[in-house]
């Protein structure tokens, strides 16, 4: 029997809320399947199953918030007897004395559904539940409010994640995210002895390459400078493993892969830095595609659990209208963060001549416990080398 626990989706996460189960007791699951959606303070994250088997029990109902490490589901391994599924234990309704609700008839209503029902003025008694064990979910309430029919309770297939309209972060989420960022950044500045390096890099060849490629491509396939910058950092991180990994339990552990965190800012405020997995193996085109997908999911949809936990080094790029350079704060437990300022024309001396070139100031914030300035300087050199060979 495997227990699935609430994962820590980032060093700053202490608790999470299961907003949606995509499986139900009796469903067969495999390692890597997305089984639930968890709301951290920062985003809705799709979490994956780490065992093969059959879902035996969903311990936590939709809408429930539990600490990191708490059991949220039990998975019976192949060949193990599957005990008939129980429904998740309903949390006591906060304001209702136990005697007020007939025990036998009481159905599980997720706290979220309860809140939505209150907002929408829906009487929960008349809402059919389609969640695990017949629980009434937010969707059920919304459907009832809209006057739509309930789907068949026994859903065989996991519902597809709904495409949702991009939205500005809700005020509650913004506050929670501010708090999460505050915790993480304060911890980084408190614990990590940062050192900082910077180099101004010639972006002329890279820009010429982009102009050339983009002139021949339709709009959806064009590359942004970010694709080349990410590629340069991913390759440099592979070459310099002492900056690619994590500081855990008092020592540095180099990572075997390069999972490149990308800081993405949200329109409502705040920033999330999910990872592009195995970024060092991707071409500029592939990185562009992943970046576009990642940004869209950060802003309007969902991230995957591994994207939130597995970054080995992070890049922050200030974009076209940002400042000239950034001295970043490392995302603990990572040990390095590479920053790029705005790409702009600057005077550039070469071969005894001064001309105007597109340039970018690259910075490295390194954890001095894990590496020294010399290693960091070599990483920035490797970034430069990659930018000079964009093709």
């Amino acid at each position, binding site marked *: 029997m495997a227990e699935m626990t609430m994962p820590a989706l980032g060093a700053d996460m202490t608790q999470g809320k299961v907003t949606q189960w995509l499986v139900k007791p009796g469903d067969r699951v495999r390692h890597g399947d997305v089984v639930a959606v968890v709301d951290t303070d920062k985003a809705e994250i799709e979490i994956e199953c780490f065992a093969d088997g059959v879902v035996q029990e969903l311990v936590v109902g939709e809408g429930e918030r539990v600490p990191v490490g708490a059991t949220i589901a039990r998975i019976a391994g192949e060949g193990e007897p599957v005990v008939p599924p129980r429904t998740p234990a309903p949390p006591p309704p906060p304001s209702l004395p136990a005697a007020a609700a007939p025990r036998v008839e009481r159905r599980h209503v997720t706290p979220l559904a309860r809140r939505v029902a209150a907002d929408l003025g829906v009487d929960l008694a008349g809402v059919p539940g389609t969640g695990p064990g017949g629980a009434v979910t937010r969707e059920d309430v919304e459907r009832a409010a809209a006057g739509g029919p309930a789907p068949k309770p026994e859903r065989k297939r996991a519902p597809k994640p709904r495409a949702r309209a*991009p*939205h500005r972060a809700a005020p509650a989420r913004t506050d929670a995210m501010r708090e999460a960022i505050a915790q993480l950044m304060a911890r980084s500045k408190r614990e990590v002895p940062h050192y900082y390096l910077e180099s101004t890099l010639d972006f002329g060849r890279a820009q010429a390459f982009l102009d050339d490629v983009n002139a021949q491509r339709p709009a959806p396939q*064009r590359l*942004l400078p*970010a694709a080349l910058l990410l590629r340069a950092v991913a390759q440099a991180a592979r070459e310099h493993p002492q900056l690619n990994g994590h500081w855990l339990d008092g020592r540095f552990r180099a990572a075997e892969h390069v999972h490149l965190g990308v800081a993405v800012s949200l*329109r409502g405020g705040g920033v999330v830095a999910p990872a592009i997995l195995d970024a060092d193996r991707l071409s500029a085109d592939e990185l562009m595609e992943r970046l576009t997908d990642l940004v869209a999911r950060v802003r309007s949809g969902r991230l995957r659990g591994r994207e939130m936990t597995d970054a080995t080094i992070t890049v922050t790029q200030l*974009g*076209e209208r940002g400042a000239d350079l950034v001295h970043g704060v490392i995302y603990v437990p990572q040990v390095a963060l590479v920053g790029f300022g705005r790409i702009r024309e600057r005077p550039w001396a070469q071969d005894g001549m001064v001309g105007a070139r597109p340039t970018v100031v690259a910075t490295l914030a390194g954890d001095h416990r894990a590496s020294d300035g010399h290693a960091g300087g070599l990483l920035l050199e490797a970034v430069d080398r990659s930018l000079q060979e964009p093709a």
Partner: protein
Amino acid sequence: MTAGETRTLIARLLADIAPDADVAALAPADDLQEALDLDSMDRMALVVAVSEQIGRDIPDREAGRLRALDDWCAYLAED
């Protein structure tokens, strides 16, 4: 496409890209990226969305010049 139609189209497409953007408050010559705090991906998304709507690609060279509503109106005048 008339200037009015272009404004309506851009406003509708921007509502998906930057939901909180107040396009109605824009002056015709305002730089969209600055006025609405768009990043390079947002700008690219707008070009892609307009291309789909008008049924033809917008070359990269042209796309770089489309900064304000005025630019879009002039560019789409013959569509």
